[in-house]
């Protein structure tokens, strides 16, 4: 099981602040591909030319990062704090 969270403009575009998926895909890249396969806004967000950052267990990660059962994955646009 993987907990996925969406933040800020990404959350608004997808109309979801998060979900739980039961299969643990092997990597962030695989999870992105699975989400993009939903089509529409999902396709655009995860396979388009937008920059969507990712954190695994609340640490910055990248497409090569591996996922395991129980992980928390956060997707979000480039940060704008400070």
């Amino acid at each position, binding site marked *: 099981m993987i907990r996925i*969270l969406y*933040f*800020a*403009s990404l959350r*608004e575009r997808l109309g979801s602040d998060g979900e739980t998926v039961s299969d643990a895909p092997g990597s962030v890249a695989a999870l992105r591909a699975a989400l993009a396969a939903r089509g529409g806004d999902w396709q655009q967000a995860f396979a388009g030319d937008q920059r969507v950052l990712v*954190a695994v267990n*609340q*640490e*910055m990660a990248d497409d090569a990062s591996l996922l395991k059962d129980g992980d928390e994955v*956060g997707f*979000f*646009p*480039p*940060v*704008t*704090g*400070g």
Partner: protein
Amino acid sequence: MSIEIRVQADELDALAEIAAVSAGDTRVGGVVSFVGLMRDLNQGDDIASMTLEHYPGMTEKALRKIVDEALERWELLGVRLVHRVGEVRPPDPIVVVAVAAAHRGEAFRACEFIIDFLKTRAPFWKRELKADGSQRWVDARSSDDAAAAGWGD
């Protein structure tokens, strides 16, 4: 060594944070601080207010990591890093970074390093409410990426 890192919805008292970073430590020779304030103009538009969203849990870890990295790079006597979330209005302070050190050069380097990395690594996002009533998410700036990249890895 006084280290304090906070994310808060309450109003931020920047001056109190700057005072606190050296309080009671007579080894401190210099305090460098950065206070980021909300402006009433952005990209040519009048801005009425702004809502700061963050990723609870990750934010604190990310800020801690940035401060730890600064403590490794420079000889510091105190760091305070406080970031506001929720709704803010001009000219509210959004963030304060205060760094105390025996000598000024290290305090300058560490203070700028912390705010440069916060701007690119800490999960905060701003949504502006324009004076005309419309809303928009603030775009990340490439100049912030460049500033962080300038520190090397």
